[in-house]
């Protein structure tokens, strides 16, 4: 009986290891935003994951209650499930963000191509215009001497 209780109750050592890991993720996320290596928009789910996981790890009664509601017999699995749900959310968020970036990339591509074409047309027009102009004072010696 005592053995079974030890199996499900999180050990202090396990709690510390999990909590330290989560706090590290949280601090790393903050530090990356501070260094501008990460935009707030893409950091929010990481921060949310840390904020949700910490009480689950440290507060065993809460973990038990949630496990009961979800019908999970082995409470630590609830922590794992929560982490997996966040990973899925983050990945999906990235897929959406990547799609948006691709859409924007295409718009930029088209805009650059259009500008290239307009610039080339403008250059042709300029060349034609200057060819049709009477020679200016600067051009005179060259055309005269030829």
């Amino acid at each position, binding site marked *: 009986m005592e053995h079974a209780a030890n199996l499900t109750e999180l050990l202090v050592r396990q709690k510390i290891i999990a909590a330290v890991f989560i706090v590290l993720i949280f601090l790393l996320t*903050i530090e990356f*935003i*501070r260094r501008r290596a990460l*935009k*707030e*928009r893409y*950091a*929010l789910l990481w*921060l949310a994951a840390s904020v949700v996981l910490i009480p689950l790890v440290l507060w065993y009664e809460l973990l038990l209650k949630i496990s009961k509601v979800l019908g999970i017999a082995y409470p630590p699995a609830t922590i794992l499930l929560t982490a997996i749900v966040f990973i899925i959310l983050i990945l999906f968020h990235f897929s959406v963000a990547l799609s948006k970036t691709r*859409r*924007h990339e295409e*718009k*930029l591509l*088209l*805009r650059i191509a259009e500008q290239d074409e307009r610039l080339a047309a403008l250059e042709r027009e300029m060349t034609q215009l200057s060819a049709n102009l009477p020679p200016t004072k600067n051009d005179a010696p060259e055309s005269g001497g030829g």
Partner: protein
Amino acid sequence: MSERDRPLYIVPAYNEGANIAVVIADLLTVAAPEEILVVSDGSTDDTAAVVRRTPVAFLELPFNNGVATVLKAGFGYALRHRFPYAVQFDGDGQHIAAEAEKILAPVRAGQCDIAVGYRFGKSRIVSSKARVVGRMLISGFLILLTGQYHADPTSGFRAYSRRAIERFAHDFPDEFPEVESIVLAKKFGLRLHGEPVTMRPRRGGKSSIKFFGSIYYMIKVTLASLIMMLRRY
């Protein structure tokens, strides 16, 4: 007043085809066409066509990227064309060109680097409770971070000094810049000032910040402002 004392009016416009012509006409009563820069933030309506029929300067961003990008474009333009001041002026018709001098005056006088115009007196509009609470939260939050009270930190009617333009052209917040730019100004040592102005009620009544977006707005602005306090500038 000499030519070089005149500001650039930066007008952000996102799908403002219905309002932008009136806004430009209003601005043309106080500024020359080359002193007005309309920036379309990837509008999908006829904003670009309407603006191109007017003589003002115009930038069209290839896709919608938020008012922060519009302002970055505007500050860069002001720098390249050596404007000594800039005025941020909404394209939706709620700001009044004749009121711009009120926010420009303290900047011209060297009393501040950024003057923010806030709605005053009769021009105050009835806002939803959530909006009022949100604005109070932001004002309180800004007192904590900057030690200064801001009557309307979300106002987009602002005048900038040359120094402010230079700093912001180099480094400016993204997405929703109004509140964060106040924190950033503090970090840059730029002096802020609030000036009461008359504004028109919003046309159509739709804000660029929608309900679900408003939750993200509050979280993003809070997080970004707090992290800004951790940065060295």
